[in-house]
């Protein structure tokens, strides 16, 4: 009987909150990108639930409203609480004890269930609140990354809940609004494809598919032949750009087992030069040995690129 109760408590206090956390966190970072592998699940579940559980437990004992709502009890003193749990656990452990305390067992069990129900509800609420806050913080990495404390927290906590594919395959870091991710995909049949990453699919943290928008194919064989001919004729090498052929399809799906490698480029919107914050960080790093006051270093773009 105790094993059944233990399984029930494990479900209520660890598995359900973790599922709530995943769902709400997933509103901010899409669920398909939010990955916990099976081996990490228990550890992550404890990590996400320890704070809300501690708060809910403390509040359900001491906080004025929380200690009696919902499911209020007439008598809810520490002594009654201890006595109820002692009666319930004892009766579940031994049949003899159950027979001896049957008249006290059922009222005690009812009170325990009401207490546990109240605790669980506040606990779920706090887990949801935590998931919302962390989800919002994770989704706004590009906006908040300059705050040192946030960066520290993101590195150590937030990133544990996001798949590494998310920043790689989406403009999550959002260097400049309108940035897109372009992928050059070399397949096992030695054909190179290029396109903008529009969707990708994960299962247990592993890439199971990727869709490229407006795909094109590189005619490598033709290019190599033209290059060879140009070398023989001692003329200029052929222009690579001429050998990209547009594929008559809006989207092209790739199976990961057919991909040899992938070259990812984060294309800034036309007219944009660089993310000033990233550039500023690079300059501070490069000039760190100089005697300059780098806290006063600023970067600006007085002139963008000429339109072709």
């Amino acid at each position, binding site marked *: 009987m105790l094993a059944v109760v233990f399984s029930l408590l494990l479900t209520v206090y660890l598995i359900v909150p973790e599922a709530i956390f995943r769902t709400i966190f997933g509103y901010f970072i899409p669920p398909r990108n939010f990955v916990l592998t099976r081996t990490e699940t228990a550890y992550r579940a404890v990590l996400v639930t320890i704070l809300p559980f501690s708060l809910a437990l403390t509040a359900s004992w001491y906080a004025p409203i929380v200690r009696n709502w919902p499911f209020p009890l007439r008598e809810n003193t520490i002594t009654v609480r201890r006595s109820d749990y002692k009666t319930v656990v004892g009766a579940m452990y031994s049949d003899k004890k159950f027979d001896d305390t049957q008249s006290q067992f059922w009222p005690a069990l009812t009170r325990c269930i009401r207490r546990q129900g109240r605790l669980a509800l506040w606990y779920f609420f706090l887990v949801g609140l935590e998931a919302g806050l962390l989800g919002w913080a994770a989704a706004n990495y590009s906006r908040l990354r300059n705050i040192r404390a946030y960066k520290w927290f993101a590195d150590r906590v937030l990133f544990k809940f996001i798949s590494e594919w998310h920043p790689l395959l989406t403009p999550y870091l959002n260097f400049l609004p309108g940035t897109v991710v372009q992928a050059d995909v070399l397949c096992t049949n030695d054909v190179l494809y290029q396109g903008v990453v529009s969707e990708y699919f994960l299962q247990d943290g592993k890439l199971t598919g990727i869709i490229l928008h407006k795909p094109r194919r590189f005619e490598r064989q033709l290019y190599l032949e033209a290059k060879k001919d140009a070398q023989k004729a001692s003329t200029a090498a052929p222009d690579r750009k001429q050998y990209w052929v547009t594929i008559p399809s809006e989207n092209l799906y790739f199976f990961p087992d057919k991909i040899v490698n992938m070259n990812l480029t984060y294309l800034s919107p036309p007219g944009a*030069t660089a993310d000033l914050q990233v550039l500023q960080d690079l300059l501070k790093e490069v*000039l760190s040995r100089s005697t300059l006051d780098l806290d006063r270093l*600023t970067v600006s773009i007085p002139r963008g*690129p000429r339109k072709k």
Partner: protein
Amino acid sequence: MVTTLSKIVEMIERGAIPAWVREQVFSNKEEIAQALRENGSYTLTGPNGEEIEIRVEKAVAA
């Protein structure tokens, strides 16, 4: 997981700087530092005429 997401993020951020900017910053770092010390500013000029101005404001004496 061999690497951490923060390392991947750092790697992507480094790659977000155009190659010409990176090249000029690394090859002219002494020149940039000297110009910032003397004039308080330095301008990087890109292949398409774009300009990036680096400034270091001087501390105001109390």
